[in-house]
């Protein structure tokens, strides 16, 4: 991968632009968002959660974040990473599974008794084991839970992963991968919306200057 910064690449932030300057004013956040990408999507030692599985999960999660069946720049990016590691039939099966799983989140129930009135129903994913190997299918079902209805997670959700052959280390990496993407894709979405909004005055607002000194 040649992208120095995947968030800049996905949000199409040109070097030297106003948003580039703003991102660089939080240098650790910028640097370690990229290090998170590398740790989760290009790890030197992937362990039991192999690269092809990571790209399948990422492509699936990215498509679930898309507002329409049309692929966003981010989901096209993760589908390309998957296509480099997996055969076309699996790429198509993962994309189909994601399209079938699209819904509006966050929904889900509450364990807390006073919040039960706020419960919102929604679908759980059922990924076709004929098209996708069972361990990956279980991982995608968990990704669907995390992306769309994370408050429905229970110990049984993790037991389903263990039953599919995943051990604790891989479950932590899988959870971090999907949760990181929930961050990265929102940051990209927000930065794109900000870049597309009519330009703000060139000078910072007076209230910002006051805040900087506060």
């Amino acid at each position: 991968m040649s992208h120095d910064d995947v968030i800049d690449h996905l949000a199409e932030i040109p070097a030297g632009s106003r948003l580039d300057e703003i991102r660089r004013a939080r240098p650790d956040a910028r640097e370690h968002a990229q290090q998170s990408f590398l740790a989760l999507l290009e790890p030197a030692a992937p362990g039991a959660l192999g690269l092809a599985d990571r790209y399948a999960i990422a492509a699936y999660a990215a498509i679930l974040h898309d507002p329409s069946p049309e692929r966003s720049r981010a989901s096209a990016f993760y589908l390309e990473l998957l296509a480099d590691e997996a055969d076309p039939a699996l790429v198509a099966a993962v994309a189909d599974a994601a399209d079938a799983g699209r819904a509006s989140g966050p929904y889900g129930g509450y364990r807390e008794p006073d919040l039960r009135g706020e419960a919102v129903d929604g679908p759980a994913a059922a990924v076709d084991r004929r098209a996708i190997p069972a361990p990956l299918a279980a991982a995608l079902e968990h990704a669907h839970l995390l992306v769309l209805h994370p408050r429905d997670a229970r110990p049984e959700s993790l037991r389903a992963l263990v039953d599919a052959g995943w051990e604790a280390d891989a479950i932590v990496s899988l959870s971090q991968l999907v949760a990181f993407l929930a961050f990265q894709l929102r940051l990209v979405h927000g930065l794109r919306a900000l870049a597309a909004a009519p330009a703000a005055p060139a000078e910072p607002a007076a209230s910002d200057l006051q805040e900087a000194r506060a």
Partner: protein
Amino acid sequence: MTAIIEHEALRRPERFTQRGLGWVPWLPPVPEGELTDVQRHALVEASRSTSPYFRLLARDPEALRARTLTDLDIFGNEEGGLPRWERELSAAAASRVNGCVFCASVHARAASRLSGRGDDVQRLLDEGVGARVDERWDAIADASAALTATPSGFGAGHVERLRAAGIGDAGIVDQISGAAFFNWANRLMLSLGEPEVV
């Protein structure tokens, strides 16, 4: 094979709260005495070795370290942008929408401490992100809630409203980053364990 940990007798919270909560894992954390040097380095702050949450995440040390350093800069960097309490408000609003009672308790408490507006923060917890406070607060809460939806509903209208409330683009990036980061944290806290009244 990994053993899932059930907590049958746990004292669970009944609603959102600003009180300090504990958190118990459903997967075995790395025991404190067995943390490797790489895992300790990944904790960034040595005191985090007492936390079962961070010791569980230490199973993937590279991801934990990068995540922690991202977190500390988004919420702790005092150079420009949004006042810290408003970044905490963004985090609390995202956590309220996702239903993460643990994360909401930590960041609602931080927002209260940094702003002195504990009653307003409590309304966010009790009534939800739709609680109306003032134009700037509401703009931040609504933008954070919209960003938290899947697919994200954050758009030009939110940017315009944040700007009209006196927030510059660096502040808007802090609001986006704070809310986006809690979409990361909420998913870990909600899916790897659960909160406990302590």
